[in-house]
């Protein structure tokens, strides 16, 4: 009995190895499915883990874009656009296999990921496969720095950090800032670094601390901020921690401002600030109301789709990452159109010269592959209505 089991399992393993060789052929002709021409766009996003909530919102933008523009004309022929969504689980260790899975599904171009660490982990696989990738909201400069296929449509940390720093120093008049990030998160640490650098250059003082992953109790950190005499807390952390920090700041009666990065721009954060005594400011890519047509369209789509609504956190507020996902989708279509082919190599060649007028602003890539952006939106959480209010457009000299 046991032996049988063992033999069967061994056999399965052997067969699986053999299957690797055999499986290749049918995949090569995948585009010919149903007689329709299909172009596949890979979505490399976290749906689970710390960044799961953000990743899902980003996917929503792409899915919505796909619903209003499900086809693309390449060389006079109409292709159906199919999104291939793979969960990279927020973690670098799952990055390579998730990326390989996408490559396996014959995608022409990849969108994502929310979160820089996993983007870098996947970038290597995309580079080997020669598949272009468009980062949507991964802001760490390293994503594109050492990867020939990675491009991105968002601003980067060296921009975002200083933007918030100068807003805090000049706009809010804060002289001492308390900076808090998660231990082991490259996203947090990167922004903390650039914020600190800029804030100190402006003449401010920074107190910096880190919390271990899985922390729920931020009370002592808020107390540390208070005893440091900080006028603002800058915490570029994921949505879950942002909620907890808002909660703790309120409970501890923290008087200063809470500054967040693009991750904070989520309806979940603004909702946790609702009815609390908290001044929350965030930098972001998109201000709801910036493009009413898009807003109305996606709201309608979200409301008509129960799953989408759940993924958006249970309401129809439009997150900036959703708008970015939407833009990323069209950027990808532009690149495919310009390439005139579904071949990743051709798309990769065409991508750098794409110029597209998105709802979050004009998109163009520089020589590294980063978007040329010079301004960010600053929003504040309205604690009475529970929505984001526009504050200003912040740019850095």
């Amino acid at each position, binding site marked *: 009995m046991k032996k049988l089991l063992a*033999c069967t399992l061994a056999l399965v393993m052997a067969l699986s*190895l053999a299957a690797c*060789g055999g499986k290749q052929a049918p995949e090569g002709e995948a585009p010919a499915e149903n007689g329709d021409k299909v172009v596949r766009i890979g979505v490399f996003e976290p749906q689970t883990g710390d960044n799961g909530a953000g990743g899902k919102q980003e996917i929503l933008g792409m899915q919505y874009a796909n619903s209003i523009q499900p086809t693309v004309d390449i060389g006079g022929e109409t292709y159906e656009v199919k999104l291939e969504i793979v969960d990279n689980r927020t973690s670098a260790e799952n990055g390579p296999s998730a990326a390989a899975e996408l*490559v396996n599904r014959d995608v022409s171009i990849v969108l994502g990921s929310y979160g820089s*660490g996993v983007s870098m982990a996947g970038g290597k696989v995309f580079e080997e496969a020669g598949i272009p990738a468009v980062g949507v909201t991964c802001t760490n400069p390293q994503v594109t720095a050492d990867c020939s296929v990675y491009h991105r449509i968002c601003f980067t940390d060296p921009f975002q950090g200083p933007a918030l720093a100068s807003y805090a120093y000049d706009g809010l008049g804060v002289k001492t800032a308390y900076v808090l990030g998660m231990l082991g998160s490259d996203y947090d640490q990167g922004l903390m670094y650039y914020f600190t650098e800029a804030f100190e250059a402006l003449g401010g003082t920074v107190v910096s601390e880190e919390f271990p*992953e899985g922390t729920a109790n931020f009370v002592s950190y808020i107390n540390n901020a208070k005893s440091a005499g900080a006028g603002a807390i800058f915490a570029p952390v994921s949505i879950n921690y942002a909620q907890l920090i808002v909660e703790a700041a309120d409970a501890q009666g923290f008087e200063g401002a809470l500054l967040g990065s693009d991750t904070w721009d989520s309806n979940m954060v603004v909702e946790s600030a609702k009815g609390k005594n908290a001044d929350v400011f965030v930098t972001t890519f998109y201000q709801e109301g910036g493009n009413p047509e898009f807003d109305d369209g996606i709201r309608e789509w979200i409301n008509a789709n129960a799953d989408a609504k759940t993924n958006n956190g249970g309401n129809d507020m439009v997150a900036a990452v959703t708008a970015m996902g939407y833009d990323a989708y069209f950027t990808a279509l532009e690149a495919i159109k310009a390439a005139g082919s579904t071949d990743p190599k051709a798309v990769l060649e065409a991508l750098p010269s794409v110029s597209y007028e998105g709802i979050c602003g004009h998109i163009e890539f520089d020589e590294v592959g980063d978007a040329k952006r010079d301004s960010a939106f600053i929003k504040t959480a309205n604690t009475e209505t529970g929505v984001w209010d526009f504050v200003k457009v912040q740019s850095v000299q």
Partner: protein
Amino acid sequence: MTMQKKKTIFTTVVLAALLAACVIVDLTLPSFHIAVTVIKKATVYALVAASMNLLNGFTGLFSLGQAGFMLLGAYAYGVLTIPVAKRASVYQYFDGGAIQFSLPEIFAGFLGDGVGGVVGMLAALLVGGILAALMAYLIGLPVLRLKSDYLAIATLGFAEILRAFFQWNALGPITNGSNLLKSYPTFSKATPYVVLAGVMIAVILLLINSTYGRAFKAIRDDEVAAEAMGINLARHKRLAFVISSFFAGIGGGMMAMYMGTIAAAPFKSSLTYEILLIVVIGGIGSISGSVIASFLYIFSSEWLLRGLDSGEFLGISAPGLFKNGFRMAVFSVIIMVIVLFFRRGIMGDKELPDLLDRRERKHKKEAAGK
């Protein structure tokens, strides 16, 4: 003696077939193909599972520190192999870091780019293993005196402490703090992984079948009797712990190669649990079981069962049921079934060639009985 010969032939054939299959995969498929990815990841897990089995299965020391030693190996590999030219960009927040050399480049200096690079990478792996072994020696001094579950929880704690240290900003010039290490050389084909892990696992097997391995098994079966028969418990336990950690360190370095980026985050206790469960599935006390289980586990979780997470599996489309996390849910149920009802796992404490053995014995018994 003929039995022995049969086994040797059997083993050689199996190994040759596996290697050939792997080479064929490498030759026919591009390096980013999911099959290659699965083989790479599975070999790394196989090595670490074998190293854990050496400790938990063969010496009876229930340690949960594997992730910590892998972390050491991974970081050592990354830190020592990042090309000097790329250090400024990797260590962007730490002025290019404190270490300004790279082993592959040093070796490339007098062995040529190709050979030197590979030698450098192997040397970095080795350093990772040695560091892990040293750390195990230090940790082992106080911890190995503890009994079963206390040992488990103490080693788990050590792994967590280690992780906090590696993320500490003050060590940033070496570890890059919380930021990723990347841009280091890796093998993109699967064969180097298979060969490397294969050699390491072979060494583990040699050790297990040596006089020391037998002493380990004696400690597992009965500590008191082992000590009474002249086996120095402290020394042998430490030896097993250090050797196991050495291979975990090497496994960590290979994991770094596989991932392409290094951060401390993946080396959490959940990684140790995952490997422990692989060991259990394969059979506590069977190295070939660990290897088979690693392949099965990685193959199904990374490839075969991915459909369980994305709405379609075996042609059945049920987006409501097959959503995110279903794969792992199914997996953990299988694991519980194995833990509760098939406690011996796939192989029990037998190795693959022993399958021949049992058939033989059965025949003999039947002949003797009637």
